[in-house]
């Protein structure tokens, strides 16, 4: 472990430490991008355009708008924002349905035992396989896509909420009952806080699933969205545009994951403290 001097007494050592930690964090990534750039310009494969070209095209697509729109290009309004809106509404819908339902089912041992096989089965049905049904029932508008995202990403939340609620320490519940805590107080003060780590883990898994389903839903009978843009570029053989979409999705996935971890850390800080050690995902 390199010790990082935190005081300004040794500015040079401090700067060196900063450079070193930056290099270990991003060094390999930067090296790989440079390697890709070098290889792409050398070989000149049309399938793998150099990163600079992708970056240039991405700026053209998404950052070429007028200043009154914060320089955001048409692509942002046509594809990126609708995608994100559908993703978030689908996921929020999944949380709003899965979380209360999961807690409700988890409170009853009988209900969770009876429903478990069916839920495991429904979770295992691949979301993309249901696209034909969703199109027939809900059309090809945003409603269908939001519904598909919600349906596909609800299971991890639901199952984890059930499991988390079931695993609440019975001693704590009995103590609360002995002290005559009313039902809603037991729910809010004991059941929900104890189940929270499980619930958050489920929400995180389902967020990753929601991104996948967002793309999947946009690859079929779609007229806009990041997934549509990627597929359309592939059909028109605009490979740089296609790569722009892939990179954007990667960044979106990372940003959402990072954001979620921030929220999770805040929400679970007391729990980590109580258990002494952070739970690995």
């Amino acid at each position: 472990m390199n010790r990082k001097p935190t005081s300004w007494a040794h500015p040079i050592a401090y700067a060196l430490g900063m450079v070193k930690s930056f290099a270990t964090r991003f060094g390999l990534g930067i090296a790989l991008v440079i390697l890709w750039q070098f290889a792409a310009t050398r070989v000149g494969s049309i399938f793998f355009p150099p990163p600079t070209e992708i970056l240039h095209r991405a700026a053209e697509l998404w950052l070429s708008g007028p200043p009154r729109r914060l320089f955001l290009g048409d692509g942002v309004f046509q594809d990126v924002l609708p995608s994100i809106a559908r993703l978030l509404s689908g996921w929020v819908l999944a949380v709003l349905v899965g979380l209360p339902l999961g807690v409700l089912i988890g409170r009853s041992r009988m209900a969770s035992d009876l429903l478990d096989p069916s839920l495991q089965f429904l979770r295992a049905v691949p979301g993309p396989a249901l696209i034909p049904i969703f199109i027939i029932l809900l059309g090809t508008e945003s409603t269908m896509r939001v519904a598909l995202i919600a349906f596909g990403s609800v299971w991890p939340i639901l199952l984890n909420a059930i499991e988390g609620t079931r695993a609440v320490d019975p001693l704590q519940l009995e103590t609360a009952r002995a002290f005559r805590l009313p039902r809603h107080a037991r729910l809010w003060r004991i059941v929900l806080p104890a189940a929270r780590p499980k619930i958050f883990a489920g929400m995180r898994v389902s967020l990753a699933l929601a991104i996948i389903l967002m793309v999947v839903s946009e690859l079929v009978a779609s007229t806009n969205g990041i997934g549509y843009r990627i597929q359309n570029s592939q059909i028109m053989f605009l490979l740089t545009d296609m790569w722009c979409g892939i990179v954007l999705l990667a960044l979106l996935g990372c940003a959402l994951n990072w954001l979620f971890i921030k929220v999770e850390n805040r929400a679970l800080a007391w729990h980590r403290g109580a258990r002494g050690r952070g739970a690995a995902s």
Partner: protein
Amino acid sequence: MSGRIVDADRKYAAFAATAARVVAGVLIFFLAAEVVTRLEIVPPIYLPRASTVLYRMFALLQDPSFLRQVLATLQAWGVGLTLAILISVPLGVLIGTSEPAYKMVSPIIEFMRPIPSVALIPLGILLWGQGFPMKVILVAYATTWPILFNTVYGVHDVDPIAIQTARCFGLRPAAVLRNISLPSAAPFIFTGIRISASIGLIVVVGAELLASADSGIGSYILFVSSSGGQMDSVLAGAAIAGLVGVAINAILARIDRRLFGWRYLGGAPA
């Protein structure tokens, strides 16, 4: 918990109770689905009755040409997953055991992991066509990350005291790896494989459907939905894919419990 010796009768009774609950649960689910579909809120051509779908499932499971599609899906899934295991377990062990490598590579894993694999379907079609290789590579890509992630963290989080003790006893690094790091990381690695197995199945079926592949459950679903919209066949195909997923998960959970049961003294594997 109670006695050490569990007599066969009690074990049998517990098994029977679980089986009864499963059967009752499945029956309730099926009856509820049947009632909802019989209300005909939407016309049955769009949403067929649950019993029609069930009937179609039995017909499909006896149809050799459909079973070949299931086999094609399982083949692509199995080869892709095996490839991912062969790549990411050794790589993960390598990264996890070396502190500098761990520090340098984990940001990259964190960046690559959330990339939705389905976003690569268009690229996959361009590079490898619509057949078996494209499916295998997409599955391998998608399933690599959970295994790699779990291997790296499993190996990295091995109790340092155990490793130092082994070193004090003069064990060579290879022996430390074999006797301490790997056994203690094995449950994590297996969890990664389990997660990957279910992700892989979703990715294969999705790729088959979205890339209109030449074979597989996904391409069957695409075919029946585009030729006259036989929704009972679509749902039956999706349900069979789901059953395959449940079966795979159940088998892997069983193996997990048998191999690493000692880890789950507090409760069942998540």
